[in-house]
């Protein structure tokens, strides 16, 4: 007998007037006459009326419509979808941590603060920076903090004309968006044919208006920026500072440190490199690290230590700080998970992260080449990720990156990142991470080869994919033209 298909009802469509999850509300009735009539709610609250089991079943079933690291290979380039150790979740959710109020006095905070202080020290050591602030709530907020610190540094020196941020054209979209949000103007620097920054173009672009450069290394093209020393010298000689986007820190963890590469400020995506969960789109954590000259400008609060123990440092301790970026101290629970991960890995484990992430990426790259796929930057080593371009397959077979991405889902594998970076046509950015086994990588290669063969025989079959998901390809144009953003009875 074939299992009946799960129904696709919304939770609102399961609602029945008068039904309730009775165990969850306080018992008894209370008097609310103290609220003035004109301030009271008159309209009904349109939440579903359902039983506890309705809720558990509905959302458990919804979860089963997702791909995730725990259920599927997820080689999403630039996202570092590695195993999220369960212990990190369990231990970060101990009642003592969950029940601590963010404004609790230091006397009731030494356990939590000690973890945050340890994490700051570990991140300083592994990145080679002089100071770390954990407060930014996501990579983009870390970027914001970084550019704001660069601005604050120039302003503190009376150097007020530096308003231009240089960004390689291969950069993540957040880099230029962040610079704009900080009130800077963006100047794009081209990339050469081998995937490195065009150093001559950079030399021509820097000047008295240069506030700084934002770089990802290895770059979004999956290769290490070999002339990094020269780039640093050009920018620093021009009076600018350099910013390290930590999106690809997993590629170099324990091998080379941003501080040793000469960067003045960095952000780390702890949800990538330190394996905190992606959660279906957050929460992230974008801790920042700074060189000595930017120490006074770090966002607050940071954890300090004195004879009395650990305590938050605020604007009194760091009067030149760029200030607060979150109501309290960032995504504390995410930081605890990163701390637990760091303790489980330890020193040796950190070295191994980059080693095995790089081994897996290079292996996958050569195996895919053997099956007829074209690598975008041939002759270069892969970092922890690499790019396949389907430019040729598109011309010959009309096989696009979207087609391959959708068909992979039918093989039980999440798609790589597609159409990013924008510089490479029909690209797939593939990042296997260190936690995947050789067997998994081999089965991915087999799936890719099978899709290629299928495309040669019957491109229509590939274009119709996916066939085994809860839905087939969705009409994005209709979604944007006929906006339906909430359920209405």
């Amino acid at each position, binding site marked *: 007998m074939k299992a009946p298909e799960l129904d696709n009802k919304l939770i609102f469509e399961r609602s029945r007037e008068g039904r309730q999850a009775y165990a969850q509300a306080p018992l008894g009735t209370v008097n609310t006459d103290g609220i003035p009539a004109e301030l009271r709610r008159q309209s009904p609250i349109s939440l579903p009326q359902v039983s506890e089991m309705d809720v558990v079943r509905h959302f458990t079933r919804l979860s089963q419509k997702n791909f995730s690291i725990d259920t599927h290979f997820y080689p999403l380039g630039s996202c570092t979808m590695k195993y999220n150790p369960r212990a990190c979740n369990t231990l970060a959710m101990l009642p003592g941590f969950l029940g601590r109020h963010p404004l609790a006095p230091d006397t009731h905070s030494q356990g939590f603060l000690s973890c945050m202080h340890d994490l700051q020290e570990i991140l300083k050591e592994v990145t080679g920076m002089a100071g770390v602030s954990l407060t930014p709530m996501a990579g983009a907020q870390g970027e914001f903090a970084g550019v704001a610190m660069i601005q604050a540094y120039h302003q503190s020196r009376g150097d007020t004309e530096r308003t231009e941020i240089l960004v390689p054209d291969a950069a993540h979209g957040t880099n230029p968006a962040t610079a704009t949000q900080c009130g800077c103007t963006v100047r794009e620097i081209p990339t050469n044919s081998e995937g490195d920054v065009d150093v001559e173009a950079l030399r021509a672009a820097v000047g008295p208006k240069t506030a700084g450069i934002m770089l990802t290394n290895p770059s979004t093209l999956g290769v290490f920026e070999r002339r990094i020393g020269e780039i640093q010298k050009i920018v620093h000689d021009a009076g600018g500072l350099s910013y390290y986007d930590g999106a690809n820190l997993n590629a170099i963890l324990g091998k080379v440190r941003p501080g040793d590469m000469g960067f003045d400020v960095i952000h780390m995506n702890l949800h990538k490199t330190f394996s905190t969960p992606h959660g279906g789109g957050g929460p992230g954590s974008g801790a920042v690290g700074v060189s000595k000259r930017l120490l006074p400008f770090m966002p607050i609060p940071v954890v300090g230590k004195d004879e009395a123990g650990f305590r938050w440092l605020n604007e009194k301790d760091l009067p030149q700080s760029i200030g607060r970026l979150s109501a309290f101290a960032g995504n504390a629970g995410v930081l605890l998970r990163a701390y637990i991960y760091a303790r489980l890995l330890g020193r040796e484990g950190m070295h191994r992260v980059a080693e095995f992430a790089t081994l897996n990426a290079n292996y996958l790259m050569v195996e895919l080449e053997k099956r007829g796929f074209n690598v975008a930057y041939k002759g270069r080593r892969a970092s922890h990720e690499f790019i396949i371009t389907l430019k040729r397959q598109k011309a010959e077979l009309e096989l696009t990156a979207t087609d391959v991405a959708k068909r992979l889902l039918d093989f039980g594998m999440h798609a790589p990142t597609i*159409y990013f970076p924008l510089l490479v046509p029909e690209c797939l950015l593939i990042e296997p991470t260190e936690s995947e086994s050789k067997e998994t990588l081999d089965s991915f290669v087999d799936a890719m080869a099978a899709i290629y063969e299928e495309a040669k025989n019957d491109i229509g079959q590939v274009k119709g994919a996916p066939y085994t998901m809860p839905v087939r390809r969705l009409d*994005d*144009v209709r*979604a*944007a*033209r006929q906006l339906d953003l909430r359920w209405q009875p």
Partner: protein
Amino acid sequence: MSNIPADLKYAASHEWLRVEDDGTITVGISDHAQDALGDLVYVETPEVGGTVDAEGACAVVESVKAASDVYAPIAGEIIAGNEALVDRPELVNEDPYGEGWLFKMKPDSADDVNNLLDADGYAATLED
């Protein structure tokens, strides 16, 4: 090969321009541009009464995967925006040189039109 009417003027940034009988000009994006963007889902037309410089960004066309600025081909005052595109952005895809026009301008100097490309000149830019 995309459609490039011979009676229009063009900017290298893919806008077309038509000089009307009353001296005003009508601006839209070329067939090539609408094809490259794909199905449009939103068009933001400029505010009527505003003035723009030549090559100043003044409208936005948006598809599912891309958003692109539209530049004023010459300097002047905005005198109309195509209201029909608010509900039917697809008009730009269906009829880029007709119902899918974006905005109308009163040029600062009628001679500025001569600085733009003709159909052959624009076609040549697409061949590179």
